[in-house]
């Protein structure tokens, strides 16, 4: 078990990486002067991972949608109590979340982190479900699905994904549907657990007021060695084309909200990091409040400061999303496509590019100033197959022609969709 020190050539920040003998990857960042501790224990298992097999399996197993999230809820229960009750004894604030391509269990605290870390490592390695507790959870998650249906931000986003993806499970709500979760039973949960919660498929990240030696000592005590069984996940075949260009839904909202998304081709590791950075700079240029397009739309009254962008990428999906509130989303789409066309034709303005690059660099430096952000950076970069400080380095080497190429090759009209949620006509 060797400690590898990873250092950022750009900011001088550093962290420690250890490949633990149990199979787990561990990232530790000691942050002198800070009081709090943030720890995340995660698995590369999210809502999109519905098809998988082990090295020795002949066939792929297909499981119902929403099972990763269901498992997350159930792991929060021990045989005799709730995990929250355990954290109540240390004062830590514990939580968990499931996203499209990962599930993470986390705590934050400022005291007794050692005990909280033991709790975290222990309960995630100790599944306990019975049919009775599974049945009860179906009701709770059913409520959660209902609640998210009342959230217009959530609806506008998933409606957009449904326009974009034919087969990729990314288009399904992370929690699944009332029908899909009805198919989940205790046996299926155990199967998924032992497949994805193998330490070789997992990572621990911890940052803040900690000692790396102490963290590793606790890991030695608590981690149970796992055999790497050669997990393989696959996704259904997904064409480059979109499903349909537009979708509208009525909900109680004030100003209508929209998502305009471009479906992009997927890639992995360093290639994805580069592409993601180019996409982020391109989208920042397009939503830059100093641009002529922004000024025009603002003067016309069709956008407000909620107009923004997001790069939505993960295992098997990649999209650039422009979103906001607008009384006329079609006008925003028209202006956006015209602006992309103009930049593709005329090239990216070098001055604008340098300014946006600086602004992005500032944002990445800020992240290193915050315990929670650092712990998240460590886990996310591992999940994405890159180093913790690679993003800042990729940014420093990026030039405007790469951004131009991204716009030309990926922000294509035929692969653009628009989702709108509007209030009922009065």
């Amino acid at each position: 078990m060797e400690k590898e020190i990873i250092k950022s050539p750009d900011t001088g920040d550093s962290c420690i990486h250890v490949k633990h003998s149990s199979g787990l990857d561990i990232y530790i960042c000691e942050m002198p002067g800070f009081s709090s501790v943030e720890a995340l224990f995660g698995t590369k298992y999210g809502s999109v991972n519905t098809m998988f097999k082990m090295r020795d399996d002949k066939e792929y197993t297909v499981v119902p949608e929403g099972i990763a999230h269901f498992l997350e809820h159930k792991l929060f229960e021990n045989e005799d109590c709730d995990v929250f009750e355990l954290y109540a004894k240390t004062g830590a604030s514990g939580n968990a979340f499931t996203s499209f391509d990962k599930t993470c269990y986390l705590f934050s605290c400022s005291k007794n982190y050692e005990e909280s870390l033991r709790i975290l490592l222990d309960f995630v390695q100790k599944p306990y479900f019975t049919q009775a507790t599974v049945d009860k959870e179906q009701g709770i998650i059913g409520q959660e699905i209902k609640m998210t249906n009342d959230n217009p931000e959530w609806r506008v986003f998933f409606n957009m994904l449904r326009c974009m993806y034919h087969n990729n499970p990314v288009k399904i709500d992370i929690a699944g549907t009332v029908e899909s979760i009805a198919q989940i039973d205790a046996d299926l949960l155990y199967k998924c657990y032992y497949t994805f919660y193998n330490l070789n498929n997992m990572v621990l990240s911890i940052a803040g007021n900690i000692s790396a030696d102490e963290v590793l000592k606790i890991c030695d005590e608590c981690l149970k060695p796992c055999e790497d069984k050669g997990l393989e996940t696959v996704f259904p075949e997904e064409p480059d084309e979109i499903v349909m260009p537009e979708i509208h839904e009525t909900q109680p909202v004030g100003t209508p909200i929209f998502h305009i998304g471009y479906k992009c081709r997927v890639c992995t590791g360093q290639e994805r990091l580069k592409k993601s950075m180019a996409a982020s700079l391109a989208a920042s240029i397009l939503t830059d409040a100093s641009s002529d397009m922004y000024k025009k739309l603002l003067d016309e009254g069709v956008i407000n400061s909620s107009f923004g962008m997001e790069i939505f990428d993960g295992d098997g999906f990649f999209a650039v999303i422009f979103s906001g509130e607008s009384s006329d989303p079609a006008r925003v789409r028209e202006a956006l496509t015209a602006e992309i066309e103009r930049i593709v034709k005329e090239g990216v303005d070098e001055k604008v590019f340098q300014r946006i690059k600086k602004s992005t660099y500032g944002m990445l430096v800020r992240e290193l100033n915050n315990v929670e952000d650092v712990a998240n950076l460590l886990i996310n970069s591992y999940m994405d197959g890159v180093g913790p400080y690679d993003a800042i380095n990729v940014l420093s080497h990026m030039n405007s022609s790469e951004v131009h190429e991204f716009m030309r090759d990926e922000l294509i009209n035929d692969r653009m969709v628009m989702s709108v949620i509007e209030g009922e006509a009065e």
Partner: protein
Amino acid sequence: MPMRYKRTELAGNIGFSTVIDEKFKTSYIVVRFITALDSKSASANALAISSLSSSSSRYKTLAELNEKLSSLYGAGLTSFAKKRGDVQILGLSASWINNRYAFDGENVTGEMLSLVKECLFSPNAADGAFEADSFKITKKELLDRIDSELNNKRGYALSRAAEIAFHGEPAENPCYGTKETAENVTAEDAYSAYQNILENSQVEIFYVSANEEPVVEKMMTESFAAIRRSPVQVTFRTKSPLRSEPVTESDEFDVRQCKMVMTFKSDSDDIYALKMLNVIFGATPVSKLFFNVREKMSLCYYCASRIMSEKGALMVDSGVERENIEKAKAEIIHQLDEIRKGNVTDEEMQSARLTLDNAVTQVGDTPASYSAWYFERFCDGKIISPEQLFEEYANMTKERVVQAAESLRLDSVYLMLDKEAAE
């Protein structure tokens, strides 16, 4: 070196606090104007403060201002209007990366400080009015924001509950005023509201950085010296009178899940006991509400309490099925009764202390958290350190928590109902 906190008073009754903490890679400044919340001025005040962060005398449009900020490594400049009981808090804040991270060697701190000064003391205005085009955009922004409050159902339900519980008091007003009042504000009104704010509001300035910057205090002293100040002191705590009989009001929307907000009121002055009670009752995942109403009885998807000590009120908000509303309401009251009866275990007391201790110890991990902490204490009327506050909780007794629970009375209930299930 540990952090160094200092608060001084500048001429004109201006509170000036600094925190120097070498671990930070960024600096932060916030200037807060504190004034009574009033339906007549709320919108004009909110528009005045927003006008400061959308342009300035040198950067005459949002585009120009934004260009400047992004060239300074994406520095942030924002304004806000918040409500705290009967008080409106208007603020302008900025944050930026320290000069040593600026790869082109710019003086980011110097540039940002002069920008903040310019936004505050030399806004984009002439002849007694904010510049018309910028003001039009700022106003639309506020109107959109008021409109979009409905998009967040939980937040909307809480606002409606406050409107009902504090009816007839300043706290019934939204912090930005209403759509109608906002629509009527002109660029002249907003500008004159800003002059009034500069002259008559309480001002608290907070600067957090890795390095001492004596220039900040000098800059603020000199800038405010040009203003004839006669600040009006606000009252941060005004207990809301209790209704003789609880009232229930409801709205119907096309939603799938109903919301219920119950407001309780207290006449107790023991704010620390009320805060601790809130933690035990409904502020954590091991609280009585979460554990019983959500987990054990599955009556609500969420059920949590929050304390508004500035009004002596406690709100319980929940997401609930229509058929479970009465059951959930009865169980929430039952759980409060349990505390009133003294059914609070030593473990619950200890766990609440640990929760509060952890929250308190984390203060200082971000520049903004220092500022929020000391400002809260300022509003409480007593500036104490995080350690001193924790002492208060360490010495808390079960008896005081029980008394705090006994002091709570149900005042009003707000229901957001699903339309389709309606008769």
